[in-house]
């Protein structure tokens, strides 16, 4: 493996200072399940690796109806997966974390790491965006909050600037009669990168959908909102004809690529199928 200098800061400020000092040569490491693989495969050659696992302030998983869900930067995917409260209140997040890699990977990987890696196919991004998640960021210039819907700027790229670190992410409490779902499409049941991922969150208002958010993963440089599909459903009942329309609209908004994993045409078709299924699943959960 390519050599690098290694630091273990014990406070957030220290981590920020190290990051600021080494600039683009430095990489933060949480679980390391993305970073170390990338270094071993020579996809990244950071001169400095800053392990944040010794920073006590970055832990903490809190979940309840009143305050919502707060996930500290060091919370592992497995901790979220095994939280009964998350499964009950945020079923789409629970579905997404169960899909990541394998149990071994989930025991090390952090959810915030999944977010900060900003892979277009990352599993938790669509449901997090659909749930209205906000990232808490600290940096040399102080703290700020950015909704995840505005966080991603390209494959592997985010709005984070030099010296900034995500300390936690926060999800608002689920609305009454809310429903959410995430469906991942891949060739295997585990250890699989999504060829398409679709997350839906909505609220039931009598027979119609409200506050519909549909987020597509792995079909554009960043996760994208299927806004046309959302509008088609807003205030309408999710009957088969409407689902079909929404699926087509989502499909039209996707911009997938052709690669060895799947053709663009197939990915686009799957956006339609998964969107229909994800809306139906989310609706089912509202009752």
């Amino acid at each position: 493996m390519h050599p690098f200098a290694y630091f273990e800061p014990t406070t957030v400020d220290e981590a920020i200072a190290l990051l600021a000092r080494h600039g683009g040569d430095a990489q933060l490491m949480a679980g390391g399940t993305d970073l170390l693989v990338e270094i071993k495969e020579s996809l990244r050659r950071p001169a400095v690796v800053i392990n944040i696992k010794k920073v006590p302030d970055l832990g903490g998983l809190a979940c309840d109806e009143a305050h919502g869900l707060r996930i500290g930067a060091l919370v592992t995917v497995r901790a979220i997966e095994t939280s009964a409260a998350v499964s009950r209140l945020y079923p789409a997040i629970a579905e997404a974390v169960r899909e990541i890699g394998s149990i071994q990977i989930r025991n090390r990987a952090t959810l915030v790491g999944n977010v900060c890696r900003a892979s277009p196919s990352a599993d938790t991004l669509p449901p997090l965006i659909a749930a209205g998640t906000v990232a808490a960021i600290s940096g040399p210039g102080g703290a700020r909050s950015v909704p995840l819907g505005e966080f991603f700027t390209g494959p592997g790229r985010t709005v984070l600037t030099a010296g900034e670190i995500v300390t936690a992410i926060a999800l608002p409490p689920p609305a009454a009669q809310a429903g959410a779902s995430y469906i991942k499409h891949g060739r295997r049941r585990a250890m699989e990168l999504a060829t398409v991922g679709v997350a839906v969150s909505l609220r039931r208002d009598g027979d119609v959908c409200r506050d519909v958010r549909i987020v597509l993963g792995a079909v554009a440089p960043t996760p994208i909102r299927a806004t046309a599909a959302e509008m088609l459903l807003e205030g309408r009942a999710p009957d088969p004809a409407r689902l079909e329309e929404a699926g087509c609209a989502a499909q039209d908004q996707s911009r997938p690529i052709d690669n060895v994993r799947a053709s663009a045409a197939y990915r686009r078709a799957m956006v339609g199928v998964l969107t229909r299924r994800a809306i139906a699943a989310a609706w089912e959960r509202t009752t």
Partner: protein
Amino acid sequence: MTSVIGRSVTRWDTLGKVTGSAVYAGDVALPGLLHGKIKRSTVAHARIRAIDASRALALPGVRAVLTHADVPRVLHYGSPHPRSASVTKDQYILDTTVRYHGEGVAAVAADSEEIAEAALELITVDYEPLPALLTVADALAPGAPAIHAVGPGGNLVLDPVVVTRGDVAAGFAAADLIVEGTYTLGRPVPAYMEPNVCVCQWDALGKLTIWTSTQSPFMVRGTLAEVLGLPLTKVRVLVDHMGGGFGAKQDLFQHEFLCALLAQRTGRPVRMEFSRKETFLGGRTRHSGSIRLKQGFRRDGTITAREAEIVFDSGAYGSHGPGVTAVATASLTSLYRCDNVHLVGRCVYTNTPIAGAFRGYGVVQSYYALDSQMDEAAEQLGLDPAALKLMNAVRDGDLAPSGHPIVGHGLEDCIRRGLEETGWAARRAAPKSHDTGRRRRGWGMGCEMHGSSAYPGIKEQGNAIVRMNEDGTVTLFTGTTGLGTGAHTALAQITAEELGVRFEDVAVVHGDTDVVPWDIGAFASHTTYMAGRACQMAAAQVKAKVLARAADRLEVAADDLDIRDGVVTVRGVPGLSLTVADAIAAERGIPAPQLVGEDSYRPTKSYSFAAHFVEVEVDTETGQIDVVQVVPVHEIGKVIHPVAAAGQIEGGIQQGIGHTLTEDFRVDPRDGRPLNASFVDYKMPLAMDMPPIRTIILETAPDEGGPFGAKGVGEDPIIAIGPAIANAVHDAIGVRFRHYPITPEQVLAALAEKGATPTPGAADQPDQTDQ
């Protein structure tokens, strides 16, 4: 006596494996060890104008760089059994021409892997591009440039293999139905757990010791000695534990030569280990290509004629191309009886990764075509496919592909048992309307037979030395390798059983070519069958010696004695006995003469059989195929170790599901660059993807040649699962696929073409099985 045959005793190798104490070639740590790496070609076909290694040599920590100018230029086989008909002599250690993207062009030894890797980037290679022939069609096109100077020409690896029996023209003339199709074959790789690795060290007397992950240590010894110009006493090959090979590790790879030469050049031990990516680039694949198959049938299902044209893609070198082509071609004479056959097999060089030996050895391909076509014929004849296969199944006395008469009714037994176990008739007859919506289910079955031993391609020989120690324990010396199948445990069981000692009292010594008897290698489903028989024969000799000595002591005739559980007993005299240890103990201070038995067994051929029954579910919106359950029925003669045999079967099914649905090593059709040389994009089914498997093993057709009637099971399980899945998919959605892997995109395209995609949201749609 409690027989140890047929008991799943604790395997010798598992404790070491689960505790991490088992030593693999890559674990060997020697003082002063250097790390070797290979610089690999980034073009598919080119002449090397020049290689500049000066910057690499100048890098601190780099100890040696080898290019084609520094290594012996000896044409070699690159494969084991060099003098058999299975392989081709067409490789150099490093050549001045590169023939595929990924071929080694130079090698570095350095103080660390990191330095070696950095050095590779400092080596510059000046390529003069040659036209890359990336498909069989390109390579066979008139006027295509020759990839090799050796061979029969026309980019053929060998002259076409032709097998003819009876009169095909007359057979087709007598047919009521002719079915014809072309089957295209994907390119799966073995994906063994342990990447290729070796460690080389020379001693002061010029003797090379190599620890290497190989299935055929004696072939490594022979080929290294030949290429390096050494007598066999100067090459010692060691292999203790192995993390699989699946056939591919029968070959000698470039790194094994280069590691030896780097160690020689530097005077220090050198380790070379493939990255996972290199196991794709520099490894061996299954032969892809195509099979055109045509069969004639009478209305009652009798097969009147069979014609086939196999074209295999060998990739850049011949490797096992000749053997695989011969075995695949001959295999189509059998499985389903047919008096009139005309079969032609070709194997073609292309500028793609090397195809080699891989579990199933050509038969995965040929029976995928044959068994799929039987289903198609059954449908057109209005017969149940299982009934058609049963009526045509080869049986006792029929000529096997090897030219031997088949013993017993193994295939028929497997089919019948599977039909019962699955309630086949009811399942196939069940109306499909209950699941004709989004997800549709179907059942299919496929059959196979496979030979234990590589006869007649190779005239093989299994050897064993059995020695009884002074305390009555036994040491078995075997040259077979333990590539992870548990074969050494089976050999110990056979030895213990024959001798009459406890299984726990038999130790196995293996993996050192300076010590153990010669062995051809662990492949061809023959270790338990062939080496097992040799163990049995050698053990019988030791037993006779023990009995002779016991007879003296007990003053009875040796014929009246037997050994059970380590105790010599006298027939008809219950009170009189002697432990084996006492029987061989020193007498008045004089030890027993050494108790050694050794024997060689030359097998001909034995066939094992299987029928796999599979249920699949097809999601008609996503095109995904799920294997829901598998019921494999195997007939393998006497079972020595049931759990190990079942393990082979389950593992083969896992690999076979991958071949059929997801695994395909692809190269860019424009430039031959590998597209998915990693486990991220080369997708094997994993634990979570495995369906329930209900394994049934029959012992109804034991073979006289095998130990206690045992036959092989290593390769069989990977063969029948493929056509069984394809046939089940047809049952589910009425679409016949004539290729593998069958991808979701292709399922959707086929359904769309058929007009069978369900209207979204709408309920069910009548099932269509008319295609």
